């Protein structure tokens, strides 16, 4: 027969001392809100440190800030420093002219043959005359640091003005994407079943069909303004790959025990989705927001370049104007028509990409280096 064993306080064998037990229980003095705030600030500081560890993230952030500064400065310049008649990015015109002497054979600068002069100026000129022809696009000079475009507008002003459009477009696309993708991902993960299948099939479709030809055709059927394009990009990318990624993230949250606990405690579906799932998915969506902006900037520039956008001025449009008038394929001499605009698109898109990659290391702990 076994003896009953009574549960007693642990007593150490002889020769050993036990540590003292804590008296009473732990007591919290701070309010919940203050604790949350403190944790939030701490988390932000830690995230910033992680982000800053990665130099390329800082480079990306720096470039973004630089461009933002440019966008803010431009209206000031237009107001106070520059003469709008000349420097306005869309309607400005600088009546720079060149003096050309008409000769039989071109032997030096500022000379032109009769045939060329008749073509460029008027048909009634004669050899030996000096005529003035407009000098557009003009090379960079003291008055026009980056020169002018074929329509006589200042390139630098155009460059700065387009920054605004780029940011606006990026913002619209990003917000729409985050909103859509988070909702779609969370709903699909939480409800599962046929809702999940339907949404994921749709996401597959969006992922499959390449964006550019679709947008080209949409551009043909409808007029593409900047806000419309932003919404379109947001919708198309929000329903696509991002939704799939966010859905797996939401799924990993759904199976966590605290969701079951919330359900048992009586939480409605809506409550669980908004209070538990979405907050855990949101950091990842902010990450993808960065990549959406990258994509949006590049897409708008491509569509403007192809002449399909209804926008007043953008970097892509700058290249389009130069290209459609043949200045870009006649040689490499008109470099200021191509290099600055393309560089701007590349830099800003790259900056968001790099910042996004650095953010990736903050949000996705698996990628952190030891």
């Amino acid at each position, binding site marked *: 027969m076994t003896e009953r*064993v009574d549960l007693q306080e*642990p007593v*150490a*064998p002889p*020769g*050993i*001392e*036990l*540590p003292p037990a804590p008296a009473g229980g732990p007591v919290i003095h701070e309010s919940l809100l203050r604790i949350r705030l403190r944790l939030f600030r701490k988390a932000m500081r830690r995230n910033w440190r992680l982000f800053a560890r990665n130099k390329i993230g800082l480079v990306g952030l720096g470039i973004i800030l630089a461009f933002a500064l440019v966008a803010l400065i431009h209206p000031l310049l237009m107001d106070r420093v520059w003469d709008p008649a000349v420097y306005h990015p869309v309607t400005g015109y600088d009546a720079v002219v060149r003096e050309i002497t008409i000769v039989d054979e071109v032997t030096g600068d500022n000379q032109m043959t009769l045939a060329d002069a008749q073509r460029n100026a008027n048909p009634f000129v004669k050899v030996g005359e000096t005529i003035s022809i407009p000098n557009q696009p003009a090379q960079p000079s003291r008055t026009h640091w980056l020169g002018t475009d074929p329509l006589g507008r200042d390139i630098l002003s155009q460059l700065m003005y387009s920054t605004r459009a780029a940011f606006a477009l990026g913002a619209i696309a990003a917000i729409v994407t985050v909103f859509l993708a988070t909702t779609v991902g969370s709903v699909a993960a939480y409800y599962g079943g046929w809702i999940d299948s339907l949404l994921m099939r749709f996401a597959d479709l969006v992922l499959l069909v390449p964006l550019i030809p679709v947008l080209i055709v949409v551009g043909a059927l409808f007029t593409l303004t900047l806000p419309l394009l932003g919404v379109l990009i947001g919708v198309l990318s929000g329903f696509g790959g991002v939704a799939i990624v966010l859905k797996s993230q939401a799924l990993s949250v759904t199976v966590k025990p605290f969701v079951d606990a919330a359900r048992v405690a009586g939480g409605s579906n809506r409550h669980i989705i908004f209070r538990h799932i979405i907050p855990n998915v949101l950091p990842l969506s902010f990450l993808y927001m960065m990549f959406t902006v990258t994509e949006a900037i590049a897409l708008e520039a491509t569509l403007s370049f192809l002449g399909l956008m209804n926008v007043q001025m953008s970097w892509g449009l700058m290249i389009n104007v130069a290209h459609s008038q043949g200045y870009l394929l006649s040689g490499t001499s008109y470099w200021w028509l191509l290099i600055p605009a393309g560089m701007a698109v590349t830099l800003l898109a790259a900056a968001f990409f790099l910042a996004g990659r650095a953010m990736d290391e903050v949000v996705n702990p698996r990628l952190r280096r*030891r």
Partner: protein
Amino acid sequence: MQTAESSMSTRPQGRSDAPLLEVDDLTMEYHTESGTVSAVVDVSFTLHGGESLGLVGESGCGKTSVAMALLRLQADNAHFLKGEIRLNGNDLLSLSENEMRTHRWSDISMVFQGAMNAWNPVQRVGDQIREAMDLHIDPPLTKAGSRERMEELFSIVGVDPKMLDRYPHEFSGGMRQRAIIAMALSCNPQLIIADEPTTALDVIVQDQILKQLKRIQREFGMAMIYISHDIAVIAEVTDTIGVMYAGRIVEFGSTREVFERPKHPYAYLLLNSAPSITGPRRKLAPLKGEPPNLLNPPTGCRFHPRCPFATEKCVVESPPLEDVGAGHLVECWHWDQVPVITEKGVA
């Protein structure tokens, strides 16, 4: 290099005279972003052919680091400060990488922690085992010869030889573990290191595998180093045991001796913190505190913050390794104060 002849024939059992493995004053540290971690300090032990040694200790005590060092598979940020690892007289730490490769698997092989994932998911299991054999067995076996040998290995560990043509994901957890053991045996090593080989398995499979390991080791006269945090398991399988704490071996001796009469306070508390179903009813002794942060280890004896016997001396001076009789070694200033618990109570 192993010859094909001595495939699965038995070797002389028990201890042979010349030591197989000698570790002298092995000291390692890791250079991390937060600082330098002193992970292994002055670890020394000797292993003879056919002997089985157990290394026991909490997570982070350095046992895996030692195991990795034996195969020179240490992490990139690990550095050897001093020490030698002699296999049959050759210092492994001084070899070039190419030379070390010839020793890996053919002289020392390893069964890793979480060996489930030790298989390449896109290759058949048989191909992966043959890969090792083709590399180390000289003269090389023919396709038929290696097939025969693998089937033999699989029957030893208790897996259906037909599974050799399957992929790892088609194996169950326990089968994968057994297959890993088979692969570890494939080149007839002199020493097998088993690092927590049964941690992720259920108790019944664990028991089976342990028994198998013991049997294989006895039958083929291999030396074995068994690493675990589970003392019960170590007790079953090993002849000699080394208790590690915070990077040092604090107690060393025959398994029976250390179990029945632990002399280091850590070992004592460890062994007496688990109740025994069959043993005498006695009061439990909990181990207070946590393992130390090896970025900034305690001065003197590394166990002193948690030790009920600690004195001023323990804070200041690190105790040397003392022989307390019959090859039973302890690193403690106050080992004589550690009580001995027998059937009848405290001695």
